[in-house]
């Protein structure tokens, strides 16, 4: 066997009290797409970052082409031919797409003056391969901040490619992409493989892993538990590797049954019948959306991502400017235009962008969980009682099985999946009547996903109105009672429960006539 292109061994990294990596390793050869898998918080991103130079490990060796590599920063990694697409994007919103693609490696003339034409050419060349993923012309001169999340993700990939890497790290690079964009990306990755590049690929979507990757290394609790040939492995086995030998944990029944019951205050009791009726809702990005949902129902939102699903949820929560239309909750008009009022009317939103919209990274887990509902427990809605707050938060931590050290730790120290549970948990304490979920399992591992599914079902069972947007058609199929397929901000089709299937969702999203197949 030839020397592996990349060999990482015994990598350790500690963050305060958290041992993120505890002797992790990864060995891969050139011309390979190597999956890096593991549950949330298992250390995948941290391992990727030690390779890309943004994290300096406490211990461990990295060999590239057999030679020991000292990677003290991104520049060292670059010199060794490593380029990375991070889970947290590194696109600068105020710079144009071109400027982002060449950032840090700008072509210059004499004395460091920029060569704008060369920059444009280079960016154009890098984005050319993804032309199919952009609807119109390549947005070379647009500020990156004006692009949609999927487009931004593509720019990020193009930026990494423009660096001509020997090793390309893709950390959940498909999380914000819709199906076609994923296909374009996969084609590019396959081309790179053919050119001898090593691609380290992390995703929680196992179908993608099987479709693209050759081998997979699995991390658990910061340790490498094994590397498998994917051709000789099935999904169950992979899952078993990821979650360990412990029997695949089914959600505890009490989670489903009582998830929506707040700790203090009257028990929810018999589910009251609630109806949400939306009439002619029109915003910048929505056109005349109307529908009705009843308590106990999960209404799915399907279609290509970016067709207005997130905007619909945001608008119902008062986070978008509403041009026309109204929403009635049990016949009472819902105040649109103020999230504060919406939340007091009993609406909850689990937003799509957890980091930006859902959590307070530097604040303790305690506060993150308490915030939405604390006024209910406070004396005169003002003075907090710490015991009550702690009890409420602890109950949620237990119920959702959030893996934490202490309630006082900043929520940023949790893994992505556990952060997501905190974001959901804060609303469960508020006993919402309408729950709006925007891609609630994005970046969440298999086990946590199942738990979140149970929570969603429990909410509906308790009589809440649930509206769920998901980029994962399987998830929609599994959870929804009905699905509204959106296209360009309007309802293109409504699928009743019998009609919901993954293939139907795909074809409907692409606006193919029913029956016509892909």
């Amino acid at each position, binding site marked *: 066997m030839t020397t592996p292109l990349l060999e990482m061994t015994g990598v350790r990294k500690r*963050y*305060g*009290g958290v041992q993120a990596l505890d002797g992790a390793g990864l060995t891969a050869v050139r011309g390979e797409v190597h999956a890096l898998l593991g549950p949330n918080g298992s250390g995948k991103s941290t391992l990727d970052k030690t390779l890309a*130079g*943004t*994290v*300096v490990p406490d211990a461990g060796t990295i060999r590239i082409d057999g030679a020991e590599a000292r990677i003290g*920063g991104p520049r060292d990694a670059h010199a060794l031919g490593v380029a990375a697409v991070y889970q947290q994007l590194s696109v600068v919103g105020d710079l144009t797409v071109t400027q982002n693609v060449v950032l840090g490696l700008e072509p210059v003339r004499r004395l460091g003056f920029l060569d704008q034409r060369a920059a444009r050419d280079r960016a154009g060349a890098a984005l050319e391969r993804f032309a199919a993923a952009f609807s119109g012309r390549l947005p070379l001169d647009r500020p990156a901040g004006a692009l949609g999340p999927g487009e931004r993700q593509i720019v990020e990939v193009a930026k990494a490619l423009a660096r001509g890497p020997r090793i390309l790290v893709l950390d959940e690079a498909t999380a914000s992409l819709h199906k076609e964009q994923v296909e374009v990306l996969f084609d590019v990755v396959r081309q790179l493989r053919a050119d001898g590049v090593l691609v380290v690929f992390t995703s929680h979507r196992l179908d993608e892993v099987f479709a693209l990757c050759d081998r997979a290394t699995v991390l658990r609790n910061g340790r490498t538990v094994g590397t498998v040939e994917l051709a000789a492995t099935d999904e169950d086995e992979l899952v078993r590797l990821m979650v360990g030998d412990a029997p695949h944990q089914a959600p505890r029944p009490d989670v489903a049954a009582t998830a929506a019951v707040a700790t203090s205050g009257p028990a929810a009791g018999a589910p009251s019948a609630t109806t949400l009726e939306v009439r002619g809702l029109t915003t910048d990005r929505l056109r005349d959306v109307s529908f009705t949902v009843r308590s106990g129902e999960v209404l799915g939102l399907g279609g290509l991502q970016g067709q207005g699903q997130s905007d619909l949820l945001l608008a119902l*929560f008062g*986070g978008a400017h509403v041009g026309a239309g109204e929403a009635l909750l049990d016949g009472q008009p819902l105040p649109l235009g103020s*999230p*504060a009022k*919406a*939340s*007091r009317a009993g609406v909850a*939103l689990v*937003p799509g962008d957890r980091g*930006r*919209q*859902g*959590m*307070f*990274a*530097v*604040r*303790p887990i*305690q*506060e993150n969980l*308490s*915030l*939405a509902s*604390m*006024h209910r427990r*406070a004396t005169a*809605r*003002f*003075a*907090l009682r*710490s015991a009550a*707050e*702690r009890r409420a938060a602890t109950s949620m931590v237990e119920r959702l099985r959030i893996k934490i*050290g*202490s*309630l*006082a*730790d*900043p929520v940023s120290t949790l893994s992505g999946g556990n952060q997501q549970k905190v974001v959901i948990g*804060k609303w469960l304490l*508020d006993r919402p009547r309408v729950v709006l979920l925007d891609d609630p399992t994005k970046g969440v591992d298999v086990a946590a996903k199942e738990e979140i599914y149970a929570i969603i079902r429990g909410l509906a069972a308790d009589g809440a109105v649930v509206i769920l947007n998901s980029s994962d058609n399987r998830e929609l199929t599994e959870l929804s009672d009905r699905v509204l397929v959106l296209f360009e901000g309007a309802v293109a089709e409504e699928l009743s429960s019998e009609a919901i299937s993954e293939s139907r969702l795909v074809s409907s999203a692409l606006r193919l006539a029913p029956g016509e197949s892909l």
Partner: protein
Amino acid sequence: MSTPVLDPPRRGLGSWRPGPVALAGAVAVALVIAGEIVSPGFAGYGQLVNLMRVAAFLGVIAIGQTIVILAGGGGVDLSVGKVATFSAIIGSRVMDGDDANIVPAVALSLLVAASIGLVNGLGVTLLRIPPFVMTLGMIGVVQGLILAYTGGQAEGRAAPALTSLVNGRVIFDLPGLLFLWLLLGLLAVWLLRRTTFGWNLFAVGANRTAASLTGVRVNRTLILAYVLSATFAGLAGILLLGYTESVFLDLADQYMLPSVAAVVIGGTLLAGGIGGYAGTAVGAIVLTVLQGLLTTLDIGGAWRTVVNGVVLLVLLSLYGRQRRLRS
């Protein structure tokens, strides 16, 4: 961590690091000891009480500054000094040396201060003027108000009751001012750690978008923060009036930037969302002790200024540091 949390963070013994409050406290003690060495008498009981008394004004002004800075988004209130001055000027004119007028005088001063804070808050939220320049502009406006109100001649005098409240010795020869400060400090800590307002404030400072999408009334919280800032500044002005007994046109102006420095030395991040008042209070003491120490050093004004800057830098590098890019 000085973050107001309900239970203390668990730390391994090996990773123990003094929090900003402890560190700032240690610095204060070190400065006092250094002071005693270079000029004996500096650590005497009477002098320590005096230093604490002087620190109290900065400490009270910095309550509001802490609140505003915690609110994030570049939050800072540069108008605190001017507002304190204005409040003292109003208070002095209305009470005019008569105990009977204390209540209306204080009420009017605080009301005017709070309204200035309200305007700051409205400018920052509704007009979206960056706090730094909004409150900077407000300095000019308040100075204008002072001139228009006084015609350039401050009048009146502190009421004797106010003076004895501030300067009078209560127990252990401690002036009433210190007990007032303690009371206000506890109020501030309670407000930040144990009220919905406090937690909303931290949330707004940590992530404004997320706060709004969690149902927090962001603008209301911010406006209240600026109102509180100006009100505490106004209160400090009144206390300063009790201390000096008479006012003049730039009585408290010099507290503008030191109030920010006290907050930062106390470990609160200017980016918002992290910190608390306990640190600020110690920060105010540190700065005051430093000033006292520099005063007693006979090194000439120019070098004294240089030393002041250098020591400030050292203090800041002990704590107020930003996070690294590389972990």
